[in-house]
């Protein structure tokens, strides 16, 4: 069966520090991968999605970036965090375009 791992679960970082969140999927090949952000008490905002290695599409301009160095690995990064980057970050995968998405456990990021 397929599983998705996301870490760390919780992170507190100072403003201006770098960020790296990692997500890996097991049990499937060539998944679509997604990064979402959820502000406190709000809905989900799609940040990036990827349909293959090295293929990244950005939905929202910001100081975040994403990379997919391997088929089942998706990384969310920032060179310098802002206070507004605080939130709950969720990685997700699906088997294709317009199919059901399955979510990782999430990373709660607090920028102080």
């Amino acid at each position: 069966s397929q599983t998705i791992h996301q870490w760390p679960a919780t992170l507190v970082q100072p403003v201006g520090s770098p960020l790296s969140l990692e997500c890996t999927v097991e049990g499937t090949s060539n998944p679509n991968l997604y990064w979402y952000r959820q502000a406190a008490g709000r809905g989900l905002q799609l940040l990036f999605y990827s349909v293959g290695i090295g293929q990244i599409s950005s939905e929202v301009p910001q100081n975040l970036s994403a990379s997919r160095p391997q088929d089942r690995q998706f990384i969310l990064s920032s060179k310098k965090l802002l206070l507004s980057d605080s939130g709950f970050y969720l990685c997700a995968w699906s088997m294709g375009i317009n199919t059901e998405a399955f979510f990782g456990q999430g990373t709660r990021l607090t920028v102080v």
Partner: protein
Amino acid sequence: ELKVEQNPLFLSMQEGKNYTIYCNYSTTSDRLYWYRQDPGKSLESLFVLLSNGAVKQEGRLMASLDTKARLSTLHITAAVHDLSATYFCAVTGANNLFFGTGTRLTVIP
């Protein structure tokens, strides 16, 4: 851009009561999903609705899809406290899912 609206945003209901959450979306889509999110947790898939008229039921929850009206409903029957959570609908668009704003459900004993 595809827009997905849910209502109500907040719902407080007593145990044993019935209620319906609505999900409207702005453009044609033939797939709709319902997710549940407990506080501080990730999203759990509840239902996948793949065609007009689709109805799925699991326990006290029943979801339906009307693609002509661009409407999905999530009906809660005889609510219990364990159903307290935030419920999201999501609609497929170009290369991703568009999520509704969520409905925060609180079931009061």
